[in-house]
C-alpha cells in the first residue's frame, strides 16, 4: 500500500489556512434579497392573523409571505434515503411556514428585503395574533392522557413505539438469588454548534431553481425541496460548497425548501437565508433528550441474567429523523452486554421543544451514557473493578448480530480495554485513588461503546463514483459523499490513488463540491459511512477505469493486458518491470487519436449490503472539587478499533473532535427551557456552555487496526464513535471519586450540587 495508511496533508488544507476556501456566503450574488424569518413567540397554538402592513411600509422591504401563503403540502425533512415503501418513509408533518405552531421559535412568516436592516425591522414590525394552546416540554408529561396534542396524526403524541425481546424476562427475574440494579438515566437537549451557521441562497435559471446550501446531503435536499414545493425533483439543483461543520444538523432539510420557495415567489430573483446563531440553536435541529429506565439482574458470580430497558425520546415538535434515534439507542443494549432474557421498549414522543434530528452519534451517546452508567452501578454493587466486570460481560468474540450481520471478529472490546488499561496505567491509578475523603478527590473512569457503519439494512446504502483520466495522467474523481470538515476528500484521494496505482494522492483531484446536476447520485455525509461506502464505489469505479486504461495501453503497446499494470502512474511491463509509457502519454494519445478519440472515464454505482461493528472506549482521570461542585478532566484517552486507517493523522483528529463533543455533553452543554413559556433561554454561545480551549485536557487517541473483512479498504465507522463514551467515563469517575451516582447530564455544578447535597457530601 503506497497511498493509504499514510498521514498525508489534507487536500483542502492550503486553501483553509489561507482563508480562500469558499463557503456558501462567500459565493453570494451581490443582488440577493435578504429573507428573515418571523419565529413564533408562543410554544403552541394557531396563528389567527398576521398584520403585515407596518412591515410592508418599511423602506427596503420588498415582500412579506406568511403561513397563509404557502402551498398546503406537508413534507418530511430527515436526511434519510428515500424509500419506495410508504411505511418506510419519514413522517411529513410540517409546512414551509406553519399555521399550527408547535414550539417557541416555529416559522410563521418571512420578510424579504433589499437589505439586512430592513429585513430585521420588517420582522420586528409583524404583528402576529395567536390562538394559544397549552404546551408540554417533557416526554412523560406528553405521554399522559389529556396532554396537549401536538401533531394531528399522532394521537397521544406518540410518534412511534417499538420493542425488542429475547428469552423470557418476566420468568427469569423470578429467581430469588438475582441482584437487582435499577436506574433512571437522563440526557439533555443539546445542539451541534458547528461554527458556520446553516444558510443558503437560491435563484432561478432557465426555469429551474438553483440553491447553494450549507448542507451535508445535497442529493437528498433536492428530493425534499421538490417534494415540499410540489415540483419535479430535477427542477431543483442543489450545490454544496465547503461547509463549516455539520455534525448532523445539516443532515436535514433546514431552510433550503423555504429558500427555494421564496425565489420562486420572487420571480426567480436571488434570495438568501442566513441563520443567525440564535436560530441555529432553536429553529434548526437538536439532539434528542432521552430518558432511560434500566433494570439489570445480576447473578452472584457477576453475570448479567436479565435486563429490561425503556427508552423515552423527546422528539420535539416535528418528526425529522424521528424514531430512528430511539430505536438505534434501544438496539445497542442487547448487543453491548448480551444476556439471555431481555426486554426493551422505546418511545419517541412529540413535545413542544425544538425538533430533534440527527446529531453525531445518533442516539448512541445517550445510550452509552445510560448503559455504561448502569454497568458501573452493577460493578459497584458487586464490589468489582469496573474494567474487570466489563471484561467478563461485554460482547463476546465472534458475537453476531443477525439483523445487521455484524460480527465481533477480533474481540475488539477486550482488546481496547486491555490496551487502554495499560496505556493509562489504570490499575495502579484505580488503586491509588481509592479511599479518598477530602474535598478534592481524583479518580479514573471508563466507558465503552459500539457503533454501526452506515445504515444497512435499515435504509438503502448506495454510492456512486465517477473517475476521469486527465491528459496529464492525473485522475479526477467525484462522488456524492461529502466533505464536511472530517477529511473525506483526502481519504477519497488516497483510496483512488491506491486502487489505480498512482504515485501520490496528489495525482487525484477530488471534486469537492457536489452539484446535483453534475455529481453522481449519492447520499451525503452521515452515519459514519463516508470511507466505508465510498470505498465500494471507488474500488469498483477504479477497477473499471483501470481496465479501460489497460485495454488502451495494450492496444498502444502491443502487450497483452495480463502482462501490464499501472505502477506509480506509469504503464509498466510485468515481465521486466520496465516503464512502457506514462498515464499522461497514454491519455493524450487516446484523446487526440484522429480516428478513435476517447476521453477515458468510468462511472458506477455500488449498492452496499453489509455493515460493520466499530468499537472503542474512553479512559479519564479527573479531579472533583466537591465544595465547588466542579470537575476537572486531567487526562482523557480514547481507543478505537475502526479497522484500517486510511489517514492516521486525520483519524486522530476525528477522535479529538468527538472526544471534545463528548466532553461538552458530559460536563456543560444543555439547552434550557423556560417552563412558563417554552422559550429556549440560552440560545447563544455565551449562555450555552460549549467547552472552550481552557476546559479541555490534552486529548489522546489510540487505535487498534483490525482490518474489517466486509470493507474494500478494511475500514469502518470513525466519524461519530469518538463522541459516544466520554460522558459516561466522566460520570463513572465521579462515582469512583465520591460514591455518588449523578445520572443526569450534564455533570455541571448545578447537577453536582443537587446530588452532593442529597448524598450528604455537602451539608446544609
Amino acid at each position, binding site marked *: 500500500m503506497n497511498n493509504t495508511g499514510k498521514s498525508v496533508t489534507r487536500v483542502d488544507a492550503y486553501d483553509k489556512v489561507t*482563508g480562500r476556501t469558499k463557503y456558501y456566503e462567500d459565493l453570494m450574488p451581490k443582488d440577493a434579497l435578504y429573507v428573515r424569518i418571523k419565529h413564533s413567540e408562543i410554544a403552541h397554538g394557531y396563528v389567527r392573523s398576521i398584520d403585515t402592513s407596518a412591515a410592508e411600509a418599511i423602506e427596503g422591504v420588498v415582500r412579506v409571505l406568511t403561513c397563509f401563503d404557502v402551498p398546503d403540502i406537508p413534507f418530511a425533512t430527515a436526511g434519510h434515503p428515500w424509500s419506495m415503501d410508504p411505511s418506510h418513509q419519514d413522517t411529513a408533518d410540517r409546512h414551509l411556514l406553519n399555521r399550527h405552531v408547535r414550539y417557541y421559535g416555529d416559522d410563521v412568516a418571512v420578510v424579504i428585503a433589499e437589505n439586512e436592516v430592513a429585513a430585521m425591522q420588517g420582522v420586528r414590525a409583524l404583528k402576529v395574533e395567536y390562538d394559544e394552546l397549552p404546551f408540554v416540554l417533557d416526554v412523560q408529561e406528553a405521554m399522559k392522557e389529556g396532554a396537549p396534542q401536538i401533531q394531528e396524526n399522532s394521537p397521544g403524541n406518540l410518534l412511534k413505539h417499538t420493542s425488542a425481546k429475547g428469552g423470557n424476562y418476566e420468568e427469569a427475574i423470578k429467581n430469588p438469588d438475582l441482584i437487582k440494579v435499577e436506574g433512571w438515566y437522563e440526557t439533555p437537549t443539546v445542539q451541534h454548534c458547528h*461554527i458556520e451557521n446553516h444558510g443558503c441562497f437560491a435563484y432561478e435559471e432557465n426555469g429551474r431553481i438553483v440553491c447553494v446550501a450549507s448542507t451535508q446531503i445535497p442529493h437528498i435536499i433536492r428530493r425534499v425541496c421538490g417534494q415540499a414545493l410540489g415540483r419535479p425533483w430535477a427542477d431543483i439543483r442543489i450545490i454544496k460548497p465547503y461547509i463549516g*461543520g455539520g455534525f448532523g444538523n445539516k443532515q436535514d432539510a433546514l431552510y433550503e425548501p423555504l429558500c427555494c420557495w421564496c425565489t420562486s415567489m420572487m420571480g426567480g430573483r436571488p434570495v438568501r437565508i442566513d441563520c443567525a446563531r440564535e436560530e441555529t440553536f432553536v429553529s434548526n435541529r437538536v439532539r434528542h433528550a432521552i430518558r432511560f429506565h434500566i433494570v439489570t439482574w445480576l447473578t452472584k458470580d457477576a453475570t448479567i441474567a436479565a435486563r429490561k430497558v425503556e427508552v423515552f425520546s423527546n422528539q420535539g415538535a416535528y418528526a425529522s429523523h424521528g424514531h430512528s434515534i430511539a430505536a438505534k439507542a434501544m438496539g445497542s443494549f442487547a448487543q453491548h452486554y448480551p444476556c439471555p432474557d431481555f426486554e426493551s421498549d422505546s418511545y419517541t414522543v412529540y413535545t413542544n421543544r425544538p425538533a430533534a434530528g440527527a446529531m453525531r452519534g445518533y442516539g448512541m451517546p445517550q445510550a452509552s451514557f445510560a448503559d455504561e452508567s448502569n454497568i458501573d452501578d452493577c460493578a459497584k454493587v458487586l464490589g468489582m473493578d469496573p474494567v474487570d466486570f466489563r471484561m467478563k460481560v461485554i460482547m463476546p468474540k465472534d458475537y453476531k448480530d443477525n439483523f445487521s450481520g455484524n460480527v465481533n471478529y477480533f474481540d475488539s472490546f477486550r482488546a481496547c480495554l486491555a490496551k487502554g488499561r495499560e496505556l493509562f496505567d489504570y490499575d495502579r491509578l484505580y488503586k491509588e485513588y481509592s479511599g479518598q475523603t477530602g474535598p478534592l478527590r481524583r479518580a479514573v473512569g471508563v466507558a465503552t461503546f459500539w457503533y454501526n457503519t452506515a445504515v444497512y439494512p435499515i435504509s438503502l446504502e448506495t454510492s456512486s463514483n465517477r473517475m476521469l483520466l486527465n491528459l496529464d495522467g492525473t485522475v479526477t474523481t467525484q462522488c456524492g459523499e461529502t466533505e464536511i470538515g472530517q477529511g473525506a476528500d483526502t481519504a477519497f484521494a488516497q483510496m483512488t490513488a491506491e486502487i489505480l496505482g498512482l504515485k501520490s494522492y496528489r495525482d487525484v483531484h477530488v471534486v469537492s463540491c457536489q452539484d446535483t446536476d453534475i455529481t453522481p447520485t449519492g447520499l451525503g455525509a452521515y452515519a459514519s459511512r463516508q470511507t466505508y461506502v465510498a470505498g465500494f464505489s471507488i474500488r469498483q469505479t477504479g477497477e473499471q477505469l483501470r481496465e479501460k486504461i489497460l485495454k488502451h495501453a495494450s492496444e498502444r503497446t502491443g502487450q497483452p493486458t495480463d502482462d501490464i499494470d499501472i505502477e506509480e502512474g506509469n504503464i509498466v511491463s510485468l515481465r521486466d518491470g520496465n516503464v512502457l509509457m506514462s498515464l499522461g502519454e497514454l491519455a493524450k494519445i487516446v484523446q487526440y487519436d484522429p480516428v478513435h478519440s476517447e476521453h477515458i472515464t468510468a462511472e458506477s454505482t455500488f449498492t452496499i449490503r453489509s455493515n460493520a461493528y466499530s468499537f472503542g472506549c474512553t479512559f479519564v482521570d479527573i479531579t472533583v472539587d466537591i465544595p465547588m461542585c466542579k470537575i476537572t478532566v486531567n487526562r482523557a484517552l480514547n481507543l478505537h478499533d475502526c479497522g484500517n486507517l486510511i489517514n492516521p493523522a486525520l483519524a486522530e483528529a476525528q477522535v*479529538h473532535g468527538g472526544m471534545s463533543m463528548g466532553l461538552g455533553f458530559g460536563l456543560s452543554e444543555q439547552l434550557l427551557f423556560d417552563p412558563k413559556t417554552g422559550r429556549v433561554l440560552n440560545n*447563544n454561545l455565551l449562555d450555552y456552555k460549549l467547552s472552550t*480551549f481552557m476546559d479541555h485536557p490534552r486529548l489522546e487517541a489510540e487505535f487498534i487496526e483490525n482490518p474489517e473483512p466486509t470493507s474494500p479498504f478494511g475500514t469502518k465507522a470513525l466519524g461519530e464513535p469518538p463522541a459516544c463514551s466520554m460522558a459516561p467515563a466522566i460520570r463513572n469517575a465521579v462515582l469512583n471519586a465520591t460514591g455518588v451516582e449523578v445520572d443526569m447530564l450534564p455533570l455541571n455544578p448545578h447537577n453536582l450540587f443537587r446530588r452532593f447535597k442529597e448524598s450528604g457530601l455537602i451539608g446544609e
Partner: protein
Amino acid sequence: MAQYQLIHFTLNGKPVEKYIDVRASLTDVLRNDFSMTSVKKGCEVGECGACNVLIDGECYNSCIYLGVWADGKNIRTLEGLLGPDGELSDIQQAFMDETAVQCGFCTPGFIMTAVEILESGKEYSEEELRKLLSGHLCRCTGYENILRAVTKVMKQRLKKS
C-alpha cells in the same frame, strides 16, 4: 436614511480608503467592501472568534467593532499573511502539518490570534497558551492540534531568535 463616512486605514500593509455605511461592522466592511472573506461570521456577537482580525497588533472580534473605528488603524487579516511570493507563513504551515484544520471555519480567526501570540516573542506555558487562545470556539478539533501547531511555531521561533 443611510449615513456614510469616509475612512482611511491600512489593510494588510496597503493604505486604503472607502465611504462606508456607519452602521456596518468591521466584519461587513472587510467582507463586503474589501472581499476579505477569510473573516467569518459565526455568531456576530463576539462569542465565537471566527471574525477575529488584528487591529494595531491586537486581536478583535470584528463583528462587534464598528467599521468607522477602523479609520487610521492598521488592520491585518489572514489574507495578509502570505509572503511576497505567495509563500505560507510558518504558522499557516504548522496548521497544515499538525492537522489543525478540519472544516476550516474557525481557522482564520485562530491563526490571527496565533500571530498576536507569536509576535510577542514570549514563551508561554501550555496553560497560558490555552488562555490566550480561548477566545475562539472550535467544534471539530478539540483544540488539541491547534495547540500543537501554535506550540511548535512558538518553539521554532524562540530557537531562531
